[in-house]
C-alpha cells in the first residue's frame, strides 16, 4: 500500500510539546539525564543490553564470533576479526514518521542514510576496544534497535553495544563509555541534551565523545556545527568528564547480569 504523495503529520500544525518533563526543567545543565542500563535482557542472544538515557531508549544484541558473511574490500585478508554493526530505528522512534528524500529510492529493508552513518560510527568507536586480533577471520554481529530517539543516540548506542559485547563474553580491552554535549549560541554548554530541550535554542555545535575509562583512551570524538577551537576544547573536556561518571553504573549492571546467569536455574 503506497502512502499519499504528500502527507503531513498533525504535529506540523500544533505547537504543543510532549507532556513528558523536558530537560530544560532541570536547574543544572551540567547534569546528565536519568540513566538506566541492564545487561542480559534477551534470552536468544549471546549478549544483550538495554539502555535508557532520559527518553532515548535502545536495545542491543551481540552474536559471535562467527564465520565472516559480509564482503569486505580491505586487503587485510582478515588478519583481524571485524565488527558487523546494524542499526535500525523503530518506525515510532521519532516524533514524526518521516521518510527523508535521500531514502525515497531505497528498498524496504535496506538501511537508511542515517542508519548507515550511525552503524559506521559505532563500528569505528568499538573497534579499538575489542580484541579483534584474538578472533582472526571471524565477525561479531552487533544489532542495535532504537526504540525511542530523544537525543544522544550515538552515545547511548556505544555504551549499550559495549555492555552487550561484555555480556556476550567477547574479549575486550575496556568498556566504552560515551556522552554528548550541545554548545548553544552564547557558548553555554548543555550536557546530554534531549531533543525537546534543544528544540527552541540555536545550536552552534554538538560534540560526542567516547572513551575507554580505565585506559583513558578516546575512541570517538565527533563534532558538528560551527564553534571556535577554544570552545571545542572545553566541550571535549567536559564531555570526557561526564563519560567517566557512568562507569560505576555500567559495571554494576554487568556484575548483576553475571550473578543472574550463574544462579542455578
Amino acid at each position, binding site marked *: 500500500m503506497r502512502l499519499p504523495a504528500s502527507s503531513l503529520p498533525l504535529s506540523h500544525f500544533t505547537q504543543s510539546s510532549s507532556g513528558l518533563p523536558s530537560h530544560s526543567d532541570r536547574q543544572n545543565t551540567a547534569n546528565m539525564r536519568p540513566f538506566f542500563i541492564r545487561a542480559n535482557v534477551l534470552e536468544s542472544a549471546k549478549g544483550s543490553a538495554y539502555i535508557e538515557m532520559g527518553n532515548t531508549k535502545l536495545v542491543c544484541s551481540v552474536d559471535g564470533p562467527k564465520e565472516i558473511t559480509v564482503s569486505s574490500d580491505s*586487503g587485510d585478508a582478515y588478519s583481524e576479526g571485524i565488527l558487523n554493526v546494524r542499526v535500525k530505528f523503530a518506525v515510532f522512534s521519532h516524533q514524526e514518521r518521516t521518510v527523508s528524500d535521500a531514502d525515497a529510492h531505497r528498498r524496504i529493508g535496506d538501511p537508511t542514510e542515517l542508519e548507515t552513518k550511525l552503524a*559506521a560510527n559505532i563500528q569505528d568507536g568499538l573497534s579499538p576496544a575489542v580484541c579483534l586480533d584474538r578472533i582472526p577471520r571471524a565477525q561479531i554481529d552487533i544489532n542495535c534497535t532504537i526504540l525511542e530517539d530523544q537525543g544522544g543516540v550515538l552515545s547511548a548506542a556505544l555504551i549499550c553495544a559495549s555492555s552487550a559485547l561484555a555480556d556476550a563474553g567477547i574479549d575486550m580491552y575496556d568498556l566504552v563509555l560515551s556522552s554528548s554535549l550541545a554548545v548553544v549560541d552564547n557558548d553555554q554548554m548543555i550536557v546530554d541534551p534531549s531533543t525537546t530541550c534543544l528544540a527552541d535554542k540555536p545550536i552552534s555545535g554538538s560534540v560526542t565523545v567516547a572513551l575507554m575509562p580505565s*585506559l583513558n583512551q578516546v575512541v570517538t*570524538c565527533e*563534532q558538528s556545527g560551527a*564553534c571556535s*577551537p577554544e570552545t571545542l576544547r572545553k566541550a*571535549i573536556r567536559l564531555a*570526557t568528564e561526564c563519560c567517566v561518571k557512568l562507569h560505576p553504573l555500567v559495571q554494576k549492571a554487568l556484575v548483576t547480569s553475571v550473578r543472574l546467569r550463574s544462579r542455578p536455574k
Partner: protein
Amino acid sequence: MEVHLSDAERVFIVHGVQEGIRNDGRGASDYRPIRVETGVLSTTLGSARVRLASTDVLVGVKAEIDEIDCKQTEKKGRIRFFVDCSANATPLFAGKGGEEMAEFVSTALTDAYSNSKALDLSKLVVSTTKAWTIFVDVVVLECGGNLTDAAALGAKAALADARLANVRIKASDSEKSEIELTDDAYFDSWQLDVIMAPLLVTVNKIGWSNVVDASLQEEVCTKSALVVGVASSPAKGDLVTLVRQTGRGSLEPDSVDEMIALGVRAGNSLNRELDRILADIGRTQTNRNELVSAAGFLSS
C-alpha cells in the same frame, strides 16, 4: 591504496616521523604540492580539478530547482554531496570496493557543510515554495593518499566556480509554476559566497607524532586519524565545523587536543591560500565571450 610495507619499512617511517623527518622531507604541517583548476567541465554549473601530489579528484556542481521542505521553519535550499571512487583510482576500488571510502568522504563533507555559517542556504530560495538544490559530485580519478582533503578542496573550488542563473517563478493557473529565465542565462547569474565554506584536514597519528596530508605509505602506518573541518576568514576567525575520529586505534585526550590544534592551523593556511587562488582565477576570467578550449586536462 594497494601499498604493502614490510615491518622494517613501517618502523623506518614511524621512527622518522617521530624525529620530525618524513620520507619526502616535509614537515609535520606541510602539504604536498596542490594544483587547483576551475571551470574544467562544460556540462556543469561549476567544476574544479584538484591534484594533491598523485591524488586527483574532479568535482562538478549542478543545481536543480526543487520544492522547499515544508516542515522546515526557515526557508532554505539544500546541498548534497556524492563521492564516486572509480576503479581507475586504484584496483581496490573496482566493484563495491570503493563504497566504504566514498561513504566516509561524502558523510564528512555533508556534515562539515551542515551548519548555518558555511553557505548561506537561504540565498538559494527562488519563491515561497521552491529553492535550488545543489549537487556536488566528486569523482576520484587517482588515489595517492589523503583523499578527504583533496575532495574538500575540490568541493570548495567548484562551489566558488558555480554560476546559478537568476530565475523568476511565475505562478500560473494550474498547480505548476512557470520558470522565467533571461535570454542570456550565463551573464545574468550569480555566484555563491564560499568564504566560510570549510576545508577538511586529516591529521594522522603516526607513532607519537601528528602529521598532516599523509602519503599512501604514511597512511598504512597510521593507527588513528582525526578529520577536522576548518572554516576561516579574516573577519570571523577560525571555526571548527567537523571533527571525526577514524581508524582502528584510540587516542589520549591530550592527543585529541593537539591534533585539533594542528588541524586548525593547517586548515587556516589552506583556506587562505585557496581563497587567494580563487580570487586570482576570478580576476583573470576577464573576457567571458572567449571560447576557452580545454587542452585535455589529463595530459598535463
